[in-house]
């Protein structure tokens, strides 16, 4: 690894892959850093190693990643797997650990393309062993072919829930039930966005086809579910919920939940990029221009980390950012940039047709965002409950950062990545304010694991 590159891209998912290929083909020296051991990101995880049969079960959208990955492999991109970025600053100095060794490298341009994370949503019992994110279930399937052996209940709201159910169905997994927590009134809320979404009808068609397959296979789907509780002695044994006015209980050892995805902003936050609250996606996202430029010169963001748009949108946004960066680096002029970008810009627009409909349809209701039970753990690292957060607000700490200072929520191993949005929602609801009040948790690096020994190995020339 060199100590300096013209362009460093963080994340080898669709945005990072497409950007790296465009830039490398324009003669830019590109380092592509990725925390996984193989390229593809979450969506195309294990693309190069997955057996053909599993790839087929994962569906054609998954297999689309093959072209992106091989284009990167054939290009002159310096690709570094097993690389976790723990710091990025305004001077575009990047701290990373590659293969266990810490380094700091410089870049003229940086593209953050580290995607999305599942929206963690605290509900009673969500920290019990046996309760997992649907995304984690999907990772185990993609990377290792692991599926639940003794049946599974899927619960939540969002496209991934349906996709995973469909993938499991094809893998022969016994799905005990799908609990759809999407509120009925979301259908009405989404209706005005339907005409535009029909411009991207293949997405809607796919969703309907998955539903049909699941119904034909006799998978029980219960809709308009509320009051989800997981319970058990030391691990998950039962789940209870409200359906059609009745309280019901299911016995299960595995519950996979999904409540949509949100941009991973910890790196852009640590760098000091400006962020805004996105009301339609109910999350923080970086403020960007049409090329992906953040508020900091030379730091761009593309893909789901910029706001949820999906894999194909990420691919286009990655290319747009690459042309912009090539232009900033003097490889092409702005006319050339604009000409090259025309097609991707159009396709990106087309990709976004379906988004307002999906955002409205899968909008998480306030009753789920803000757990009503005071004993529900919100920060699982420090085991801070909703009640403790509310008590801090009642003492006059009316923004999330002050609540963090006082209660330690968000100060544990994950540094608030899991609980930041939940805390913001609870604080806002309790204080009668908007979740954007007071801003997100302040980004405090390292944003990925870094040991004292690794830190001590840096800058050996400096001593005092």
């Amino acid at each position: 690894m060199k100590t300096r590159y013209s362009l460093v891209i963080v994340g080898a998912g669709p945005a990072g892959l497409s950007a790296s290929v465009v830039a490398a083909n324009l003669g830019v020296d590109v380092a592509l850093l990725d925390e996984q051991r193989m390229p593809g990101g979450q969506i195309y995880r294990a693309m190069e190693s997955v057996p053909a049969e599993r790839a087929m079960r994962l569906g054609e959208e998954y297999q689309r990643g093959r072209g992106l990955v091989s284009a990167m492999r054939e290009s002159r991109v310096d690709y570094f797997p097993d690389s976790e970025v723990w710091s990025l600053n305004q001077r575009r100095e990047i701290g990373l650990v590659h293969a266990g060794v810490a380094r700091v490298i410089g870049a003229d341009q940086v593209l953050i393309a580290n995607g999305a994370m599942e929206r963690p949503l605290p509900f009673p019992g969500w920290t019990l062993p046996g309760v997992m994110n649907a995304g984690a279930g999907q990772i185990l399937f993609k990377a290792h072919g692991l599926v639940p052996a003794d049946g599974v209940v899927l619960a939540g709201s969002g496209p991934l829930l349906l996709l995973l159910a469909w993938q499991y169905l094809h893998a022969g997994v016994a799905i005990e039930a799908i609990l759809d927590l999407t509120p009925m009134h979301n259908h009405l809320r989404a209706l005005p966005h339907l005409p535009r979404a029909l411009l991207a009808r293949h997405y809607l068609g796919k969703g309907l086809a998955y539903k049909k397959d699941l119904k034909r296979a006799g998978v029980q789907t219960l809709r308009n579910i509320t009051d989800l509780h997981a319970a058990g002695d030391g691990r998950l044994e039962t789940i209870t919920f409200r359906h059609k006015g009745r309280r019901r209980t299911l016995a299960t050892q595995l519950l996979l939940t999904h409540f949509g995805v949100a941009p991973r902003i910890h790196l852009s936050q640590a760098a000091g990029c400006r962020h805004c609250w996105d009301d339609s996606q109910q999350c923080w996202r970086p403020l960007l221009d049409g090329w992906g430029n953040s508020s900091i010169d030379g730091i761009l963001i593309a893909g789901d980390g910029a706001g949820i748009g999906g894999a194909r949108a990420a691919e286009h946004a990655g290319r747009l950012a690459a042309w912009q960066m090539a232009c900033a680096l003097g490889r092409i002029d702005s006319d050339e940039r604009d000409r090259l970008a025309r097609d991707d810009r159009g396709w990106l627009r087309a990709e976004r047709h379906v988004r307002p409909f999906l955002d409205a349809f899968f909008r998480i209701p306030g009753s789920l965002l803000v757990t009503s039970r005071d004993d529900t753990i919100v920060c699982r690292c420090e085991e801070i409950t909703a009640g403790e957060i509310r008590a801090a607000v009642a003492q006059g700490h009316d923004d999330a950062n002050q609540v963090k200072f006082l209660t330690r929520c968000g100060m544990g191993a994950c540094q608030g990545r899991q609980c930041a949005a939940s805390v913001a929602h609870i604080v806002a609801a309790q204080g009668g304010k908007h979740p954007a009040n007071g801003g997100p948790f302040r980004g405090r690096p390292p944003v990925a694991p870094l040991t004292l020994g690794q830190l001590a190995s840096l800058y050996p020339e400096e001593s005092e």
Partner: protein
Amino acid sequence: MAARHADVLIIGGGLMGFSTALHLAKRDVSVIVVEKDSPGRHASGVNAGGLRRLNRHPAEIPLSVAAADIWRHIESLLGDDCGARFPGQIRVAESDADMRLLEERAALVRSLGYTHEEIIDRDELYQRVPALAPHCKGALMCRDDGYARPFHALTAFRHKACSLGVAHFPGTRVDGIERIADGWRLMTPKGEFRAPLLVNCAGAWAGHVAAVLDEPVPLRPGAPMLMISERLPPFVQPVLGAASRKLSFKQMGNGTLLIGGAHRAELDFAHQTTTLNWARLATSARTVMALFPQLDNVRIVRAWAGIEAFMPDDLPVIGASSVSPDAWHAFGFSAHGFQLSPIVGRILSELILDGGSDLPIEAFRIERFR
């Protein structure tokens, strides 16, 4: 909007501001605290929380000793223990030269009539800190020094002050300070505040206030960095420093290690933003590894910097204005003000209400920068 009135206006909702407010309110003075951000947003809330008399500048020793008495019974003052613990603070000697320095220091403190700083020999050092690397020679120790949790302390001061009637206006930036016939007027986006008396506890921003009062000071804002580790099983009780290295090291009650050492971040003061300097933090990590090599694989979970006021002589400004008979200052604590905060509030309340204090504060006069 009608102006709000009080007897005393305090600019700065940090530890010094709320400690002063609390001590004034205890004597039935009405106080308004105006804070541009949230309470304790900067140095007060994010410092290392050291309760240290060890190695203070001689001028600070009487204040620090008096403050230690208050900290030991902080619950009786605030109704909250602020997470205060007193496992001692130790300054380690890594060489014979270090040891000589520490012995000279102990002699100096004794000559001033104090006994709180003691030399401990190698055996006692390793008995107290068995995990320490084997090369150390001995140490200087304050047996009942310790630490507290800064934001909790700030919150406790604020709650107590407010329970005694102090009015607190966070998110209220002072845009203008004006002398009026019967005292002072502060202009803020949230309206006007008026009082006969004014106190400047504005931390890193106190230089602005002093300049407006027509007594500029050579205050330099700085942003010392701290980092904290994952939780570890308990292995070190006292707070550790080193005689010839920049270090402040302690294991908190929850098992995390708090590592400081006065290494500074890059500061953009106008925007109130800091950029961590990893080269200096690497030095800090090497210092820790030299004393505790077994911590090699311990994960750092968070690093940050807080914005603090530094004076050229590293001594605070505490006392009356040199130009206005109805204004006072307490700022410039140069990264060692946390422990002093309860006594500084008391001193200011005495200066304001009694015209003087029993404690020697000559060295902290603002006139020294004329």
